[in-house]
């Protein structure tokens, strides 16, 4: 490892040797399985519960034409989009504060920002039951104050699903916006101010446009993670708040209809994958990797 690079143009095997275990894993555990479910989605599940090998379009026809799937797909995109929007609006404030503050608490604020990543998603999601549930903090407080006499059911609707998702996704958004704000040359805003801009104008004309890559990276992460979840709707949503990944879970784990489950997950992959590809075409996937530095 300590040897220097060969000077000649001879093929160097060493990086490929180092990469081979990781690349083999990605190939065997991700690429080939994904190709496999593409094939699988054209098979049929028979009435006796086995699979009929062949080329049938039935699963795809069902997934693409059934109004039930359209409704849930639309609901999923709406919930993910709203959660992303709230994350962007709410997350910009602390990101801006951490980037521009001169207090010695900056390092602490950044460390605290990383903490939610270490706390399990299921705990962060279920914690809201303690806050909003019938015997939760809000109801107990309101009853103790005599404002209400009976507890109110605040959980199990679309708003609490979005709340849970925002709580889960917010750190991703803040971190990405912060990384991009932190990289802005401060003399640019100073220049804008000295040319007569108000603070707000300097923000709108200089800082905000320059932070768009961070907003976009955070937005992509929030949307893709949000649209692919089934845990939040199961814990914080009601029966009518199912998202697309819940259908996949139902088909695979409950109904054991694996060909249909394959088609459903491929549709989800196609939608979110297109989004990722459009993003990486225009902005480059490197922006997301920046938050790890």
């Amino acid at each position: 490892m300590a040897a220097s690079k060969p000077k000649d143009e001879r093929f160097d095997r060493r990086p490929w040797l180092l990469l081979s275990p990781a690349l083999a894993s990605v190939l065997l555990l991700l690429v080939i399985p994904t190709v496999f479910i593409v094939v699988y989605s054209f098979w049929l599940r028979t009435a006796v519960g086995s699979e009929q090998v062949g080329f049938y379009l039935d699963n795809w026809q069902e997934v693409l034409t059934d109004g039930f799937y359209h409704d849930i797909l639309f609901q999923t995109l709406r919930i993910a989009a709203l959660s992303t929007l709230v994350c962007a609006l709410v997350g910009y404030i602390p990101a801006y504060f951490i980037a521009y503050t001169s207090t010695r608490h900056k390092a602490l604020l950044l460390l605290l920002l990383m903490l939610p990543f270490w706390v399990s998603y299921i705990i962060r999601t279920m914690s809201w039951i303690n806050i909003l549930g019938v015997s939760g903090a809000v109801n107990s407080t309101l009853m103790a104050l005599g404002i209400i006499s009976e507890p109110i059911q605040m959980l199990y609707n679309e708003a609490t699903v979005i709340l849970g998702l925002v709580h889960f996704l917010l750190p991703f958004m803040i971190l990405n916006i912060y990384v991009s704000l932190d990289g802005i040359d401060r003399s640019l805003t100073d220049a804008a101010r000295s040319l007569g801009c108000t603070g707000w104008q300097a923000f709108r004309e200089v800082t905000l446009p320059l932070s768009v890559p961070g907003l976009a990276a955070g937005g992509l992460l929030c949307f893709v993670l949000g649209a692919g979840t089934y845990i939040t709707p199961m814990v914080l949503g009601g029966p009518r708040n199912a998202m697309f990944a819940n259908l996949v879970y139902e088909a695979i784990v409950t109904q054991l209809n694996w060909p249909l489950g394959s088609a459903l997950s491929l549709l989800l992959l196609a939608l979110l994958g297109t989004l990722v590809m459009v993003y990486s075409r225009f902005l480059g996937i490197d922006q997301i990797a920046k938050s790890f530095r």
Partner: protein
Amino acid sequence: MSLAWNAIRLGTILVYIFMFAPVAVVMLLAFNANQFGSFPLEGLSLRWFVALIENDAIVRAFQTSIVLGLLTSVISTTMGVLAALAMVRYDFPGKRLISTALIAPILVPEVVLAVALLLFLRALDVPRSFFLLLMGHVIFTLPFVVLVVQARLVGIRREYEEAAMSLGANAFETFRHVTLPLMLPAVMAGMLFSFTMSFDDITGTLFWKPGGVETVPTQIFAMLRNSISPEINALGTVMVVFTVALPLLGAALARRVAAHLSGAR
């Protein structure tokens, strides 16, 4: 300080409260003596933690999660460190494509990854098993290890190694006294990251786990089906301590070990 800046500061405080208050409430209620484990608080008690230890299912879930997390972190970090070394130290054709391939498991939604892996291994006659669970955890933690380790390896300059060699150290001595101490924080970071991700995962785990086997997150999920009980809050608290305090402790330890190794010359 301007009015606007004060508003931003207040907003920041509110957002941090939003991020941490619910988890703080979980931890607070875990110590609640009230028999329903809900508000109002009626004094402190450790009874819910005692209940955890006496619950065999929970103890088993803990054992499963720890073994799974340790194995995942060893396998995933070994592969991730090797790959990160290749990416940081060498230039080769197709590097951009390889870089995308390495982070591909993050770009695919975890549900899709879970379904694909489950159905593919099932077709190869590998049923839902601990092995499937382990493979799943390795593949979804791998990209994060590569990213985290790569970010830290960039800071290690070749000049240090070249200086050691020019001063007469052989390849092994150079690795032992220069490269290893410099790399150790990156390796530790990769291991902690993958352990925590594996320990916390639920999305893929619910697909991959064999019947009757639970990890701590799936155990919590199963218990939520009934109703929220103080035991869940206690379990959540233990888990938070496990995945938050441990990395912080580990990071501090890694720094000391690294300092010791590089000071041992």
